[in-house]
């Protein structure tokens, strides 16, 4: 196993089908708990999420900057 630091951006407005139940009624932005799932889903591309945080949000572009540590199997 290895640990790796990741930085990435996610949209606050994406609404994947699997999250439709958790999206605020009638609004576009993901609710924050749904956004957690979305971030962990995005991080899974890099490895298994261990620790992450949104460190800033760009309101103009509706994108969040995320820093994370993931684990990867050797």
């Amino acid at each position: 196993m290895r640990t790796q630091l990741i930085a990435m951006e996610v949209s606050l407005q994406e609404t994947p089908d699997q999250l439709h139940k958790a999206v605020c009624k009638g609004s576009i932005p993901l609710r924050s708990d749904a956004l957690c799932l979305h971030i962990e889903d995005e991080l899974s591309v890099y490895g298994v999420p261990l620790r992450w945080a949104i460190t800033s949000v760009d309101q103009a572009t509706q994108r969040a900057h995320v820093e994370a540590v993931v684990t990867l199997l050797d």
Partner: protein
Amino acid sequence: MHLKRSHTTVLIVPTGIGAAIGGYAGDALPVARAVAQVTDRLITHPNVMNGAQMYWPMENAYYVEGYGLDQFAAGHWGLKPVHQNAIGLVIDQAMEAELRWRHFQAADAARATLGLNVSAHVVTDMPLGVTLKTADSGASWGTLENPDSLLRAAERLITEAGVGAIAVIARFPDDEGSAALQAYRQGEGVDGLAGAEAVISHLIVRTFEIPCAHAPALAPIPLDPSISPRSAAEELGYTFLPCVLAGLSRAPQFVSSKLGADLLTDVHTGTGGRDRGDVHSHQASPGIVADSTISQAHPAVDPAVIWSAQVDAVIVPATAFGGSAVMNLAPLLNRQGGQVIAVGDNSTTMSVRAADLGIRAISVGSYLEAIGAIAAYQAGVTHTALRPETHLIPSLDKCHS
């Protein structure tokens, strides 16, 4: 007859983000002590409770490692209070003999003076290889060269010694007087060790689902008479281990169950209602069997187990809403009339405010005000009634006109 149910508060000060209060050496512990007086159950984490050789056990405080807190907040895990945990020590092979002995003696001291049950130790079969990093945000992070060695050591303690909690002592890189260390000792900047510490404890909690906390092992640094009181707790000796052992000795165990998720779903879907009282009250919910036999047999319906659906308030620095725990708890509290409290004067290197994520929060200037907001809630008083302006009741009709 007093029928009020227990009030539960989660206090979060994320580690490694330069929090003005809680970003140094146990300097959020006074906040925890004060908050514990206005809530029945305080759930918080090692960064808040640990002050190296300083600690303050509280009967109503639950010491929950960050990964476990995230799982609790998401409704995946419950917290089962314990009378005591047997603690196992994982010692990084990279530690020099003298540092190793200092930590053994700290553990022996905790056994002899506090009566703690430190029951076994294992030295890792490889050096853990801690590397410290600072991300673009200014937060400290870290990685391990040999995480499998850490997990093998923890597994031996669990399977061979039957411990219920793990304290890890890893050899961290010595700092020869960097500007970052100087700033930290002056009560400024970011704790450069914190991010790596969190990675270590998260790995164990994620893998074994038991309490864990970490104490870094470092060579003593030269005396500096000018250090900040906020950083002073880490200047007292050879080890940061005592607070970790004290915290772990009563840390709640994790209960992982689909039933826990079902309880949360009941609340999410409204079937649990605003009465987010004890799990007992949820046992009457559809799909949850109120059977005392099952209650005893199944930890998820044990009334002593605490679930996120029972949280009434979460307190977070106003700029640090981007963590998993608060992002999961806040929508739950927003829907159910609980309190999400954003503390303005606890500045951090983050810049994620509640409004950025669509979270409704009570903005307060300080922890003093946060404590007042909880006291008012407990008294049945809306916090807005304690401010000089009282606005007209908003009309929902106007929103649709």
